[in-house]
C-alpha cells in the first residue's frame, strides 16, 4: 500500500482537514492508501523520502525531498479540490 503524508504548518488543523477530505475521496474511489499527517517543521528530508507521496498545504522548498509533492491547499479551501483529488489519485494508481 502506498504511503501518503499530509503536512501543514503545525500539523494540527489544516492537515487534519485535508486528510479527512482525502480519505473520504479515496474510500469512495476504492483507492487504498496508508494516510498519515505531520507538521512541516517536524519532518526531515528522510521522513518525506520514506513516503510515496506528500500532500502539503504549501509549496515545499526542500531540494533534498525526492518524493513527489502535491500542493493540497485546495482540500482546505474547496477551491479546485476536484482537480487536486484527481491528481492524487493518478499519482497513487500509476
Amino acid at each position: 500500500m502506498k504511503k501518503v503524508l499530509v503536512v501543514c504548518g503545525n500539523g494540527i488543523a489544516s492537515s487534519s482537514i485535508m486528510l479527512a477530505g482525502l480519505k473520504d475521496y479515496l474510500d469512495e474511489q476504492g483507492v487504498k492508501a496508508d494516510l498519515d499527517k505531520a507538521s512541516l517543521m517536524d519532518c526531515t528530508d528522510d521522513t518525506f523520502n520514506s513516503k510515496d507521496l506528500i500532500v502539503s498545504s504549501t509549496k515545499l522548498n526542500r531540494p533534498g525531498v525526492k518524493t513527489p509533492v502535491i500542493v493540497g491547499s485546495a482540500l482546505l479551501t474547496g477551491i479546485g479540490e476536484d482537480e487536486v483529488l484527481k491528481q492524487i489519485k493518478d499519482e497513487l494508481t500509476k
Partner: protein
Amino acid sequence: MGIKIFVNEGTPDISTYQAAIKFAGLPMLKANGIYSQFSQACIKREKQFPTGLKLADGMGIAIPHGDSNLVKVSGISFVRLLKPVSFGLMEDAQQQIDCKFLFNLALAKGDEHLTILRKLMKLFQSKEFIQDLAELPLDLLTSNLQTKLN
C-alpha cells in the same frame, strides 16, 4: 464554552500584514484573552507559513494563527481592513495575495483549530457570507459570526 468573537474595522494607517495582525490582536489583549507575545508569534509564523487564501472570485482572506500556549481564552478577531494588505499565499510563500479581511485565530486547544478552520472554510465558499463580511454593520456582523462560529 463559546469562543469569543471580536469584530473591528481597520484604521487608515494599516498597510502591512504585520500591522494588521497587531491590530487584530489588540481587542483580545485588552480582554485578557492572549499573552502579549501572541501577535508577534503570529507574525513569525506568517513569515514561515503564510495564511493568505485566495477565494473563488480572486479575493483574499488571511487567517493568521498562533501558538495555543500563548492563548488564555479562545477568541477570534475579525478585521475588515479599509484597504487590502498583502499577505503571503498559503499554497506558495513566494506569492502574495491582497487581503481585505482577516480572521486572527487565538484558540487555546488544537481541536478548536480543526473545528473553526473547517467552519470558516465552508463559510468562505458562500458568496452571501463574504458579502456579509464586507457590508454588515459591525454589531450585526458580530452576532452573525457568534452564531456561525460557535
